[in-house]
């Protein structure tokens, strides 16, 4: 091919004769075409959008636990989990004790048996009841530390501070530390003098003044 060869006509550059139709027919065709075009995009988009909303639309199925026959389950129906430590481990003088909570963890397609799922602070004053706090800061979800010399809980991210009873000491956190339900038991049976510490471990929504279970 040489530069002198004739131009190849292209559809885009040539005005092709467009057949003249009745205006009514043309409007109908345009309407149908528009609807079809919309439909072929809208159907997959809607389906995909709903798929993306799965986390708030899907009902989750209950997972099994793997307690052997005859063994006292680590977690009861009400969601209380037995801690590794007993009453004796919590210091008498009110110093808080950090404890890791283990539980079965379902993560999408996996079941992780008996893995750490969070950490809590346990505290006891004299022979009083044991208090349990979720160590996650109710502000924005960092972990709260115990500062020995200040004798308070403190979050290293945005400086939330809490008294040892969990009450907030400045305006940074929206609410007090999240208190968890504690139940003292013996062989899994409710017993006010029991030594086993069972805690209903829950996480709560951060950045809100209300304590809302996640």
């Amino acid at each position, binding site marked *: 091919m040489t530069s002198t060869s004739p131009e190849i006509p292209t559809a885009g550059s040539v005005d092709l004769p467009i057949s003249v139709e009745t205006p009514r027919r043309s409007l109908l065709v345009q309407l149908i075409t528009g609807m079809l075009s919309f439909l072929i995009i809208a159907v997959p988009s809607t389906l995909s959008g709903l798929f993306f909303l799965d986390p708030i639309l899907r009902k989750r199925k209950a997972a099994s636990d793997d307690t052997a026959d005859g063994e006292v389950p680590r977690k009861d129906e009400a969601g209380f989990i037995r801690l590794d430590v007993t009453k004796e481990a919590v210091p008498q003088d009110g110093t808080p004790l950090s404890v890791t909570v283990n539980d079965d963890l379902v993560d*999408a397609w996996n079941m992780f048996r008996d893995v750490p799922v969070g950490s809590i602070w346990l505290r006891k004053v004299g022979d009083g009841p044991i208090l349990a706090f979720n160590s996650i800061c109710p502000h924005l979800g960092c972990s709260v530390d115990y500062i020995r010399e200040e004798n308070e809980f403190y979050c290293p991210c945005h400086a939330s501070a809490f008294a040892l009873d969990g009450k907030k000491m400045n305006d940074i956190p929206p609410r007090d530390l999240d208190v968890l339900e504690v139940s003292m038991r013996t062989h899994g049976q409710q017993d006010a003098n029991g030594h086993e510490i069972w805690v209903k471990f829950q996480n709560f929504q951060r950045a809100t003044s209300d304590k809302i279970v996640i």
Partner: protein
Amino acid sequence: MIALINWLETRTGVKALMHEAFNERVPGGARWRYVWGSTLVFTFVLQMITGFMLWSAYSPSTRTAWESVYHIQHEMFLGNIIRGLHHYAAQGMVVLMAIHLIQVIIDGAYKAPREVNFWLGIVLMMIVLGLSLTGYLLPWDQKGYYATQVTTNIMSATPVVGREVQVLAQGGSDYGHLTLTRFFAMHAGILPTLLVGFLVLHIYVFRRHGLTVHDPKRAPDTTFWPDQVLKDSVACLAVLAVVLLLAMFRAPELSAPADPAVKFDAARPEWYFLFLFRFLKFHAVESLGVTFGAIIVPGIIMGIIAAMPITAKVLGNLGHTLNRAFTWALALGVVVLTLMAFYEDANNVEHQAALTEAHRDGQRAIELSIGPDKIPVEGAVTLLREDPFTHGPRLFAQHCSSCHRFNGHDGRGSLVTEAGKTDEAPSVIAAPTAADLGGFGNRQWMTAIVMDYSNHFAWMKNSTWFRDAQAKHAAGGTVDYINPDSSEMADWTSGNLDDLKSAENADNVRALVEFLAAETGHAGTTYDAALVEKGRDLAIKGSWAGALNGTSCASCHDTIGQDFPTQPDDSTASSYPTLAKYASLAWLKDFIRHPDAARHYGAKNQMVVYSSQKLSDENLDLLVRWLTHNYTPSTVPDYANQLDVLNAALAPSSSVAVEAAPKK
């Protein structure tokens, strides 16, 4: 060649396209100040190139994300460079974007008829910030995990739909596999696609209106190609050089694998979000709530920026002046807040300690992953959970450091402090009230026990129980307590010090110490076998030179040289502490569980009993293995020795503490 181009031209119109792309008119000549947009396009292309390559090796799940990023950076050919380029170019993009935005506002390039393009630019900026945010989580390390938690929690503070937005972003009520798959889909698919789309529009509209030129007579008009392209290329090369050098000499950090059960006190956002982080910490801002500080204020600022074309239209020159003033004020505020955050963190002892720990954990995780056993399918997080080097110091800090120290610190590198005498007084460094376990069971430790017993355990004299016992004793009462200054052992070392230090016994002391240290079985040290045997002889038979001859350790500590029993039993115990494999793993476990047993120091021992309810078997094992060096050896730099700092801090205070400080 020409024929080929013509053939292509007739079928595609390529010439017209090239003409359109490269022959843009540049009134007033090519200038350096026009390069910023091009550098942004270039960094985006760089992100696409490196990003696709990283994608080819990245695996988004909680048990493979950290692991695959580790593999990219530490195993794959040029992996550290590719990740480094992607890491630093991302930061470069944010910086270039800020420059581009400031320039557009200063030059008035946002004004009519370029309003739509300005808004397209703002959309692009949001997309880029979204890319940085989603990218920060993908390595699934502690740093990204905890920093992104803060971000998604801020999302939840959005009025009305906050919680739903958070759950959708996370893929569930908590972080997990689906958080990663969704963040990755956003980061590598949805956001880049949107970015390309908006970038095409942005450039198209830009070409429609052309450059904003203030001084068209400055130089003769030219065309984009090659004059401006040359300048653009040089600028892009400079950007490339910077990120490449950073990638080569400052590899991006990979902190320890994310673990929701391990607190991370060093959490900070990427440095370009530090200003917002610092802003949130103002008391006045805090008291108005997270929604106000993290959503409403940034929203208002973005609103003011987006409204700038309208402001300029309505108020004319005054509007433009206001817009420029606002931009400079905002830039100044961002710089000041960023510097404040850096300065405060650099001077925050706790934050620095947390950073040290974060680096130590991260390097340890990498070190274990590099090891011959590789990473188990359960993920690298289990490597650290089962690692004494990682968790020993934390357990020590939690359970032991209220009395003991480890090389002067609490096990995690921090000095232990206590409240000042009054409520207002600043906190002070607390004096230890039990032995410093930094060199537990090593040669220096054994030498100190043989030669310098009183001094070695002198920290005990700071304790309340010791003072109480002394007071009671002084008042004439009978009290049975451990006194480092006055016990059979203290008397033996002080009474025989001259003989022990004599030239003829020098080798004997060395041999005894070698034997005692070898008996601990601590890993990581090799012992001289001949010397150990000689030491054993000395310990059991007492074959010393001179006056010491015949005095053996075994005459009191009758189990020395024997194995520590698997079922210790005190029915045959003598009244002296057992030295059977003293300071070994088995001995120490038994000592921590039963410090008050007759085979140790009996009821007079003030050490707290650590039952399995108080310290689980797993944790006892981690703690003791750490103290006896029974773990995969590490080359990770350990916490600095703080004994000198501790001694110096205690020196001017009470006389007890000064005397109690062990000799160096």
